[in-house]
Structure formats: structure tokens, C-alpha cells
């Protein structure tokens, strides 16, 4: 497969994912909608990183460098969420 064709196929997949994520907004998914929309966003980002940004032909070190940014911001989210979710807990109600 020529590299250019591969890139165009990736683009097509991205467009499909975009259609899916917008379509999912209208479905009665309840709380799963958030999971779906971010899940699809992560899939899109992964495609852009892997193919458009050429991480597929990069060294493990380069991939680690990019991945670390995402993991690290995840840590910020995790502990902020831990605070917000548990602020209302009392000793009686928590466990």
C-alpha cells in the first residue's frame, strides 16, 4: 500500500469516527455517552498520532515522550476528580 493511500484511508476512518461521535450524541445512551464520545476522541487522536504524526515509524523513546504528556495530564485529572467526588462523603455514608 502506498504511504499516501494509507494516509487517505486513515482520513476516511477519521471522518467515519466523526460521524459516529456526532450520531451518538442523538442516541439515548445515558451516562455512556460521555464514555463513547471521549473513547472515540481517543481513537481519533490515536490515529492522528500513529499515522499522521508518524509515531508508527518512530523509536520507542519518541513514542514514550508523547505518551507521557497524555498520561501525566491524566494524573492531574485523576486526583482532582478524587477530590471533587469525595468531598461530600461523610464517614457514615462513604463505605
Amino acid at each position, binding site marked *: 500500500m502506498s504511504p499516501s493511500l494509507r494516509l487517505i484511508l486513515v482520513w476516511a476512518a477519521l471522518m467515519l469516527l466523526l460521524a459516529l461521535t456526532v450520531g451518538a450524541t442523538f442516541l439515548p445512551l445515558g451516562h455512556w455517552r460521555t464514555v463513547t464520545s471521549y473513547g472515540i476522541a481517543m481513537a481519533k487522536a490515536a490515529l492522528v498520532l500513529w499515522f499522521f504524526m508518524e509515531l508508527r515509524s518512530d523509536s520507542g523513546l519518541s513514542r514514550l515522550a508523547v505518551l*507521557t504528556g497524555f498520561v501525566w495530564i491524566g494524573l492531574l485529572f485523576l486526583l482532582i476528580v478524587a477530590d471533587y467526588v469525595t468531598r461530600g462523603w461523610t464517614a457514615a455514608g462513604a463505605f
Partner: protein
Amino acid sequence: MSNSALHEPFHDLARQHETDRFGMLLFLASEVMLFGGIFAAALGLRMAEPDAFAAYSQKLHLWLGTANTGVLLTSSLLVALGVEAARKGRYRHLGWLFIAAALLGLVFAGIKGTEYWLEYRAGLMPGVDASGIEDRTQRLFMNLYFVSTGLHAIHLSVGLILLVALAGRACAGRLGHVMAANVGLYWHLVDVVWIFLFPTLYLARPV
């Protein structure tokens, strides 16, 4: 930034190119952390007022936002194709592809500007005309929307300048594929940030 000539402190060109790319990737990791702070703020607001957040998300222009997402993804494709062309030594193709990508970037900016104008018309622009804002959570949501899309737009503008500058150099024959790829990386980051901004702001609509 470097061109393809070997320079201090490197002994070999392959190592120099590798290092240039690696430095760019490290910079991208720092940009992810930068935008992460705004996402954390959005997360905080959404956790505090989930229903209100959803209601106000619904008032954004979903179809314009969707179109913008498509535009940016397509411009990313053109940049990636351009870098591929550079790798094959086809610098004129690179030049045209980067110009086309920049034009799509301008289209993005145009659509965004249209949205801002519509929001101003509807009185949803705090600080300028907040007559349409119903309560403080909506004000907060709109503020977050303007700050995060504004910061993204600033990065997009920098990317536009880089794309055009590099297209010029490519057409003049003074560009290496490593620098093209590095500018491409920056543009793709602008795209990735939007990929996450879109669901955060536009797709949080009521269940």
C-alpha cells in the same frame, strides 16, 4: 530551526535529525500539559454542575463545530501528505499541500469567527454582550468556551504562519523533510487538541 546542513554540536546528520524531531515531540508533550489545565477546569465545572453544563453545551452550534472538526482533520491529512511528498523529494508538492492545509486552517478560523459572531448576536458573550445569559453557570460555561477555543485559535494562528512560511521555503527549494515534518507535528497537535475540545464543549448535550 535547522536546515539540512550538519551543524554543531553534532557529528552526523542522522543523529541531528533524530534529535530535532525528538525535541519537537518533547515540546508537544509540554503543549499537551498546557491544554490539560483548561480541560481540568472544564472537568471541574462539569462535575460541579453536570445538568447545567449539558444544557449550555446544547446552545453551541453543533453543526458548525462538526464542520470545523472535519475541516481540521482534512487539513491534517494534507499536511501529512505534504510531509510524505517531502520525503520523496517533491518539494513543490509539499509547498502546495501546505498552502492548501493553511487555507483549510483559514476556513476553520472563518467558521469559528462565524460562531463567535452568532454567539455575540445571541447575547452569549460575557464581557461584551451577556444579555442572553440565563444564569451564572452559563456565564461560566461560555467563558470557558471562549478561553479554550481562543487559546486553541492562537495556536492555530501560529501553525498557519509556520505552514505558509514553510511552503514558501519549499517552493524556493530551501527546505528539508525534517523541518517539514516538525512543523507538521505542531499542526497535528493543534488538530489533536481540537479532537478533545469538540466533545468537551459541543457533545456534552443532555442525555
